[in-house]
C-alpha cells in the first residue's frame, strides 16, 4: 500500500510519539527505517506504527540536515524494539539517537569506517578486507540530551568486572546459524544476554539500491530461507501494488498454496530443530523425513528445494507441474497422520513437557513492545496474523483459524506451530481442488519502473510479519528497499525471555522463538 507519511520535526518527535502511544494506543512499532534523502532532505527515519487494539495505522518521518553530526531523539523507551532498530540506523546512516542506552554498531564491524547507506559514502574506499579478528567492545556509549540543548556522551560497561561471560556462538550447534550471544552467567543462571549480530550480514538492502527490480527478487529467498516463498511473495506484491498490476486468480491461489506449503516446511523444521536442541535426536529425523516430501513437491514445480525463485513480478516463474495436485493431495493425509507421531515421541513426553512448560514466559505487553510477530507473538495472545489483519492473495476466500494461546511459554510457542501445520493443511485442502484457470504470468514491460512514492506491504511469513518498505523515485532501481525482518525482534527479546533462567533454557527459548539468522543479518 502507498504510505501516507506525516513529517514531524525532530524536536517535536518524542512528544508526538508519546501522544500516539498514549492517546491512539499505537503500541506496535512495525518498522523503523533509516533514510538518506540527500543534502536537502537530510538524514532521517520513517516510522510505521499500528495499534493492536483498533487496527489503526500511522506513518511518520523525521529528518535532520546536519550530515556531520546527525542527532535524532530516541524512541527506545516507548517501544522496546526501537533499541535494536535504532542501532541498525546508527550503523548504516550514522544517526545518533539521544537518550538511547546502547549506541553501538550492530551489523558491521566495530572498526568499520563510515556509514555505508549514506548516498555519498564510499564503503570500499576506507574499508579494505581486514585480516584481523573483529574487536568486540566491552563498553557502550550513549548520548544524553540536556534540557539546555547540549549533548553529553557517556560510556557504560556492557558487563561488570568479574562477570562470568560465556560466548554462545558464533559457531554453536544451537544458535541455528552464525549468531553470537554473550551470556553472563551466575552458576548456570543467566544474568544478561548481549546478542552480537552481523556475522553473515551481506548488505542485501544496500545491494538492492543498485539492482533493478527483477534482480532484487533473487535476494529475498536468501533472507529467511525457510520463508523463501513468502519473502519473495511480499516483494512481488509490493511492486505489483505500486505499479497497479493485477495478477490472475490462478496466480493468487498458487501463491497461497505455495506459501502454506512453505509454512508447513518451516514449522516442521522448527519442531525438528527444537527436538535436536533438547537432545531428542530421533524426533529430529522424523521431522526431516516429512519435510522431504514438501521439498520434493517444490522441486518438481520450482526446480529448487531451498532457494525456490518462484514468484515474479506479475505472476510466477512457471506453471504448476502436472504432478503437483496429486502430490499435494497425497501429502495432506500423510502429514496429518505423521503429526500424531510428533506428539507421541516428543511433545507428550514428560521430560519434554518439563523442559518447556513455564520456561521463558513472554507477556503480551512484551511481545507487542518488541514486535515479536508470528507464532511467538500469538503464543502470548497477540492476534497479529497478517493473513487476517490485511488479507492478500487468496486468504480472503479460505476459512482458517488464527491460532493463539495465552500462556506465552515455550510449550505454547511449540503448540502454536503444531496447530498452524493443521490450519495450513486445511487451507491447502480448500484450494487444491479448484485452482482456477488463467495465465500464470502477467505481461510486464521489459524494464520495470515503479512510480514515485513510498510503499509498504506485509505478508505472513513463516515466523511473523515479513514487510517490504519500498521508496521509489521513479527509477528502474529502488531508492531504498528495507525489509522488516521477522527474526530481529525475536533475537531482541531473548534477553528479556532468558534472564533468570538456566543456560539449558536459553537453548529451549532460542529454539521456540524460532529465529533464522540470515533474516536477522540481511
Amino acid at each position, binding site marked *: 500500500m502507498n504510505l501516507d507519511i506525516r513529517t514531524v520535526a525532530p524536536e517535536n518527535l518524542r512528544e508526538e510519539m508519546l501522544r500516539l502511544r498514549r492517546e491512539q494506543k499505537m503500541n506496535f512499532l512495525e518498522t523503523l527505517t533509516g533514510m538518506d534523502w540527500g543534502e536537502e532532505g537530510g538524514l532521517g527515519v520513517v516510522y510505521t506504527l499500528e495499534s493492536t487494539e483498533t487496527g489503526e495505522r500511522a506513518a511518520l518521518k523525521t529528518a535532520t540536515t546536519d550530515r556531520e553530526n546527525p542527532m535524532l531523539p530516541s524512541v527506545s523507551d516507548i517501544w522496546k524494539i526501537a533499541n535494536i532498530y535504532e542501532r541498525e540506523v546508527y550503523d548504516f546512516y550514522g544517526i545518533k539517537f539521544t537518550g538511547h542506552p546502547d549506541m553501538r554498531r550492530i551489523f558491521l564491524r566495530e572498526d568499520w569506517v563510515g556509514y555505508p547507506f549514506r548516498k555519498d559514502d564510499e564503503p570500499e574506499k576506507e574499508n579494505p578486507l581486514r585480516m584481523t579478528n573483529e574487536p568486540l567492545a566491552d563498553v557502550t556509549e550513549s548520548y544524553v540530551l540536556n534540557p539546555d540543548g547540549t549533548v553529553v556522551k557517556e560510556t557504560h560497561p556492557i558487563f561488570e568486572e568479574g562477570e562470568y561471560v560465556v560466548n554462545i556462538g558464533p559457531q554453536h550447534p544451537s544458535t541455528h546459524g552464525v549468531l553470537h550471544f554473550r551470556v553472563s552467567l551466575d552458576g548456570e543462571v543467566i544474568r544478561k544476554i548481549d546478542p552480537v549480530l552481523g556475522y553473515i550480514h551481506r548488505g542485501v538492502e544496500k545491494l538492492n539500491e543498485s539492482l533493478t527490480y527483477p534482480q532484487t527478487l533473487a535476494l529475498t529467498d536468501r533472507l529467511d530461507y525457510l520463508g523463501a516463498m513468502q519473502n519473495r511473495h511480499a516483494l512481488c506484491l509490493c511492486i505489483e501494488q505500486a505499479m497497479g498490476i493485477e495478477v490472475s486468480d490462478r496466480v493468487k491461489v498458487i501463491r497461497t498454496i505455495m506459501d502454506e506449503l512453505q509454512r508447513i516446511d518451516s514449522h516442521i523444521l522448527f519442531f525438528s530443530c527444537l*527436538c535436536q536442541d*533438547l537432545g531428542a535426536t530421533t524426533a529430529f*529425523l*522424523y521431522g526431516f523425513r516429512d519435510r522431504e516430501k514438501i521439498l520434493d513437491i517444490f522441486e518438481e514445480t520450482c526446480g529448487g528445494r531451498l532457494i525456490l525463485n518462484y514468484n515474479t513480478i506479475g505472476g510466477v516463474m512457471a506453471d504448476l507441474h502436472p504432478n503437483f495436485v496429486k502430490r499435494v493431495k497425497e501429502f495432506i493425509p500423510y502429514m496429518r497422520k505423521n503429526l500424531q507421531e510428533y506428539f507421541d515421541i*516428543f511433545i507428550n*513426553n514428560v521430560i519434554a513437557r518439563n523442559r518447556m512448560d513455564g520456561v521463558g514466559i513472554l507477556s503480551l505487553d512484551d511481545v507487542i513492545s518488541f514486535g515479536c510477530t508470528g507464532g511467538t507473538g500469538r503464543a502470548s495472545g497477540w492476534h497479529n496474523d497478517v493473513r487476517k489483519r490485511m488479507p492478500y492473495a487468496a486468504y480472503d476466500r479460505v476459512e482458517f483459524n488464527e491460532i493463539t494461546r495465552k500462556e506465552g511459554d515455550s510449550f505454547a510457542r511449540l503448540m502454536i506451530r503444531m496447530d498452524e501445520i493443521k490450519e495450513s493443511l486445511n487451507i491447502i485442502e480448500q484450494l487444491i481442488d479448484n485452482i482456477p484457470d488463467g495465465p500464470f504470468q502477467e505481461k510486464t514491460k521489459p524494464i520495470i519502473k515503479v512510480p514515485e512514492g513510498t510503499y509498504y506491504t506485509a505478508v505472513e511469513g513463516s515466523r511473523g510479519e515479513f514487510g517490504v518498505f519500498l521508496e521509489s523515485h521513479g527509477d528502474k532501481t529502488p531508492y531504498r528497499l528495507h525489509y522488516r525482518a521477522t527474526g530481529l525482534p525475536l533475537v531482541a527479546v531473548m534477553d528479556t525471555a532468558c534472564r533468570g533462567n538456566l543456560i*539449558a533454557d*536459553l537453548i529451549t527459548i532460542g529454539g521456540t522463538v524460532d529465529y533464522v539468522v540470515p533474516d536477522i543479518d540481511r
Partner: protein
Amino acid sequence: MLFDFNVISQWLHGALTSVMPEWAAILTESILVALAIITLYAVFAIILIYMERKICAFFQCRLGPMRVGKWGLLQLFADVFKMLTKEIISMRQSDRFLHNLAPFLVVIASMLTFACLPWNKGAHILDFNVGVFFMLAASSIGVVGILLAGWSSNNKYSLIGAMRSGAQIISYELSIGLTMLTMMALTGTLQISEIVEQQYAEGWNIVRGHVPAVIAFLIYLIAGNAECNRGPFDLPESESELTAGYHTEYSGMHFGFYYLSEYLNLFITAGIATTIFLGGWAPLHIIGLDGFNGVMDYIPGIVWFVGKTLFVVFLLMWIRWTFPRLRIDQILALEWKYLVPISLVNLVVMAIVAAYGFHF
C-alpha cells in the same frame, strides 16, 4: 553340566609351572590376563559403537553405516585407525600435566571395573570377598578424570560440563550404592562369583527378590544411565548447549579414551545389571522343565552373560534414542527427591523380605 572355565585356567597353570618356577608362571599368567582385558576392552568398544550406530539408525528411519564393508561392518575399524592417527593437540593456557592425565584416569577406572565382571563360571579376573564394594569404589575414580578434564582445559564450556558431571555422577552414585545394598541384603554376600553361583542354584535375583528387586532394577537402570553420562542424562557433554562439555578441548586418542570409556561404561553398567539382577552367566532355568533346563545348560555361560548384557545395553540405547535431555535442576531433583527416597524405602522392604524369607 555347565562349562567351567577353571578347567582351562588350571590346565594353563599346570602347564606353565611344569616349565618354569611358580613366580614366573604367575607373572606370565598376569600378563596374559592383562592382554586379555585390553583386547576385550577394545573389541567390546567396537561392537558397542557399531551396535549403537545401527540401532540409532533404525530408530531414526535410517540405515547407518553401509559403505565400508558389508553392512558397514568395517566402518568402525576405519574409525579407530583414523582416531589413532590423529594429532593430539596441546593448548597454550591449559594445565598440561592434568590435561594429559585426565583421560587415563577415566580409562583406568573403567578398566578396573571391567575386570570385575564374571564372564563365565570360573572366569573372573578380580574376585574377592568385597567384590561389589571394590567395583563401586573403582568406578567412582572416573569422575575425578572428568573433573580434571574440565578444569585443566581452561575452557568455560568444559568447566560447566565438568561441574555438571561432578554433581550428576556423585548424586547418582548414591542410588547405585543403595540399589546394590538392597540386592546384597537378598544375597548376603559381596563376592561376585558367589552372587552368580547363588543365582545359578536358586534363580535369578530379579525373580527371587520379586517386587523390591524389580524396583531396584529400574532404579539401577536409570542411575546407571546417568553414571554413563548418556542421554537423557548426557548434559555434561550436551552438545546443543556446551558443544562437547568436558572433552571439548581433547583431540586424537585422548578424546578416543573418553569415547572408549563412554561405551565401555555402558557395557559395564549393563554387565553389572546382568550380574546382580539377571543371573550373570547363569542360564535361563524354568522350575519343573528339566529337559529345557538341560538344553539351556549346554549353552556356555559366556554366551549367556554377553547376551544378557547386550540386551540391557539395547534397553539403554532405546532410552537414549527416545528421550529428550533433562535440565540440571531436573536431574538433581529426580535423584534427590525421587530415586533416593524410593531406594531407601525399597531397602527396608528388601530387608524385611530377606529377613522373613518372603523371597522365592
